[in-house]
């Protein structure tokens, strides 16, 4: 019986992240628009865009290979699986043991690897520029998040995300300098990985500033819909990750009753909304960086993460 309940919980989580992801992006856009005193598109606009794209024909470049057609599905599947392994409203996930935090990050790494390949498949100048910049950003962001994970895992004594979330929710954590550093590092990486301002502008089609958009320039129709959905899932994943590690309050414990699940769900939605508002305010108040300022921005994250890990090595209580 409990197995079935767990299975349902896991399935519900997979559906939840899939359905919630476009809404989250819509919400960020709406808040940004309101901050600029615009009306902004309705919250459901991302859903409509996805449906519209899925119904359209795919227009494939003459030179595109089979890999180009498979990659959107690989990216989507990888991101979806990764997103559904991050605890949302409750930490008891049936399959959470199949991949720990390092594996989740590596799964996102796989998705990015293929996206960068897709940018190079058609053989256009813009695809190349996007891929080349993406791997540069990734080469700094990935170690930064891995080392952040090291710091968190050493404090929690586990890389298993459910265990980490439970530990962070307990009173054993206390206030630690290293956790503060890890939080800042994780936020910087999340901004870079999701292609938000100041690293990349998700709304741009200005040639020389594109990174993500340049890689997916040749995609259309359902392929583009999948890639858009994947990046929306990725935003949800990172916000959930930050929430479950650093704002663990309210999340339902494993084997919890319906009531605490409901509390967990409400708390989760509140956390998402708060993070989205913060993201929108941050994005509105800052300008996009030049490409070669990004390494300094990410380098700061890398240094903070290393410092956090080092502190953990030096002292058990910092």
């Amino acid at each position, binding site marked *: 019986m409990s197995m079935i309940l767990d299975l349902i919980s896991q399935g519900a989580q997979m559906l939840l992240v899939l359905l919630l992801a476009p809404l989250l992006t819509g919400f960020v856009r709406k808040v940004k628009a309101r901050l600029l005193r615009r009306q902004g598109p309705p919250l459901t606009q991302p859903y409509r865009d996805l449906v519209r794209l899925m119904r359209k024909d795919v227009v494939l470049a003459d*030179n595109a*290979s089979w890999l180009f057609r498979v990659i959107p599905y690989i990216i989507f599947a990888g991101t979806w*699986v990764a997103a559904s392994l991050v605890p949302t409203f409750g930490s008891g996930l049936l399959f959470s043991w199949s991949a*720990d935090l390092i*594996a989740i990050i590596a799964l996102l790494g796989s998705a990015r690897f293929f996206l960068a390949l897709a940018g190079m498949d*058609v053989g256009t100048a813009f695809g190349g520029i996007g891929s080349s910049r993406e791997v*540069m950003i*990734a080469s700094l962001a990935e170690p930064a998040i891995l080392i952040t994970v090291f710091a968190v895992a050493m404090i929690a004594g586990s*890389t298993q995300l459910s265990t980490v979330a439970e530990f962070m929710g307990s009173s054993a954590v206390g206030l630690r300098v290293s956790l503060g550093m890890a939080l800042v590092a994780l936020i910087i990486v999340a901004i870079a990985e999701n292609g938000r301002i100041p690293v990349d502008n998700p709304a741009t089609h200005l040639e020389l500033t594109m990174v993500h958009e340049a890689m997916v320039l040749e995609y259309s129709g359902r392929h583009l819909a999948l890639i858009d959905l994947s990046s929306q899932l990725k935003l949800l994943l990172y916000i959930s990750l930050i929430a479950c590690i650093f704002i663990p309050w309210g999340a339902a414990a494993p084997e919890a009753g319906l009531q605490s699940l409901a509390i967990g769900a409400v708390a989760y939605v509140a956390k998402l909304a708060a993070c989205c508002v913060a993201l929108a305010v941050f994005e509105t108040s800052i300008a996009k960086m030049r490409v070669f300022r990004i390494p300094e921005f990410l380098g700061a994250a890398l240094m903070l993460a290393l410092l956090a890990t080092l502190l953990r090595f030096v002292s058990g209580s910092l």
Partner: protein
Amino acid sequence: MIVPALACVALLLALSPLAIALAAQPRGSAVVYGTSLAANLALCTIALIDLLDPGRPTFSLVLPIGLPWLGAHLRIDALSAFFLAVVNFGGAAASLFGLGYGRHEEQPGRVLPFYPAYLAAMNIVVMADDAFTFLVAWEFMSLASWALVVSHHREVENVRAGYVYLLMASFGTLALLLAFGMLAGAGGQYDFAAIRAAHPAAPLAGAVLLLALLGAGSKAGLVPLHAWLPLAHPAAPSHVSGLMSGVMTKVAVYGFVRIVFDLLGSPEWWWSIVVLAFAGPSATLGVLYALMQCDIKRVLAYSTIENIGIIFVGLGLALAFKAEAMDWVAALAFTAALLHVLNHAAFKSLLFFGAGCVLNATGERDMEKLGGLIHRMPQTAAAVLIGCVAISALPPFNGFVSEWLTFQAILLSPQLPSWGLKLIIPAVGGLLALAAALAAACFVKLYGISFLGRARTAAASEAREVDAFSLAALFALAAFCLVAGILPGLFIDALAPVAKAMVGNSMPQQAGLQWLTIVPIAESRSSYNGLLLFAFVLLSGSIAALAIHRLASDRLRRAPAWDCGFPDPNPAIQYTASSFSQPIRRVFGSTIFAAREIGEMPPPGSGAPARFVVDIHDPIWEMLYAPIGKVIGFATERVNVLQFLTIRRYLTLVFVALIVLLVVLAL
């Protein structure tokens, strides 16, 4: 089962002189590679039987050859059996690939005789049980591979590569010779059993560790002893390149493990600091060097340095934990290193063979002249893609598993008491994470530039798919990369006797766990299930494809590329290998390689083309090797005068030498 194993090695040795005659025959190369393949498969089977035997047997034999009072001691224990399996697994793949690839060899007489000899030498090294046999086989291995490196001797680059290789190989053997000399002690006990029984004193053991690190590390390609590797590995024919990078570097790892973990006795805490100080920078610098290259085989050779760095990080951690008597973590780190040995042998061979296929089909190794091969060589492209994903340590392939295990060992290291380790291990962890991310960038570049996009030259646009034997080797290795990635528990369990013998403990049994998960320490701490992850990704990808095709649209139209409205039919508009790595070169290379970009614009009115030059320096060559070379050159120049003296002066010299000797004796 040492006698059948030796019979196979003898077959390989006998094949070597026969191959001289066979080389002239039209089917000669097929006979040589076919026989090698059979011998490799037999040896691999024998090794696996020995490794998986629950009785943990060791077989030994003394042959009456070699030094008269010593004989040739040979022995197969768990460690030898594992490395025997790796050597012959790689060897079998190379022989299978050679069946197809070898047909295109222009001068088979320069490759065929040395190939089986090289395989035999590597087998003898891992079976040797006394210092003399070990060193002779080691040197034999170096010389055979040297002959293969210079097999295309008309190219100036290859001759230079051979020269540097020969020098570095001699240096490595010299270091090992000294190490064994110290181990043998004044009594001259050269067989390993006697060395194992008599542990050397602490300062002596430290010196042996350093010498073993220099000797084995120079063969494996640890920075800064790697200088020969990116020259020599690419120069050999591609299946031999695969063997050198995938297998011979592992024989070097074997040498290090045998000396340090087995013969030296219990380690001291500072040993691991020395090992980690070499290993961490090797991992990051290796892949940074790889990113700066445009030659496919050279990229692969530099990436070998990175992977050797990862292996040595695992070994260094194992040493640290073993020294602090935390043998269960030592087992984890050691198993991670050995698993990476196996994994790297698989994907590096695969990638070198893929490079060989490209070389055969287009005649080019330079990525700038390739492109679009996925259309012309779809099967090669598919197999190489798997290799690229695996080597970038991405799930669900095998490279990820061994790096994941290494990370798990790093996460347990705050428990180590010594301060030196507390400071160096986070740094090494950071370097390893950086190396993993840069490796992904490196292989996006390798695959994207050479296989994707549009053909940059006529040679690339007229490439043909390669023969069935080559493809069989590629796909066998690709399948191995996937299987080892989704069922890592099987391989971890197979490594248990090796870890037990070397660090005194083994990782917990993985076979009985639910859903074939791997759990290195405890389930609450960390677990990974590649099979489930792979199934999930496959399932959700298929569901998405099916749902969208059924419910939304499955129509597809072909049209010219969009490219923001500026499509250009000229393939030169694409990103090139050097432009792809430009951002990374600017971020990392400007400090490490002193990389500069120089744009030379012609004066106004001049019709000369503008030029853009990238200026890169190799810091290790310029700061370490070049000065040493200069000193040696200067000294030899001075001493060279002695060659042109008159007879009177020579007689005077002899007389003076005699007087000096007598004086010394008298004092």
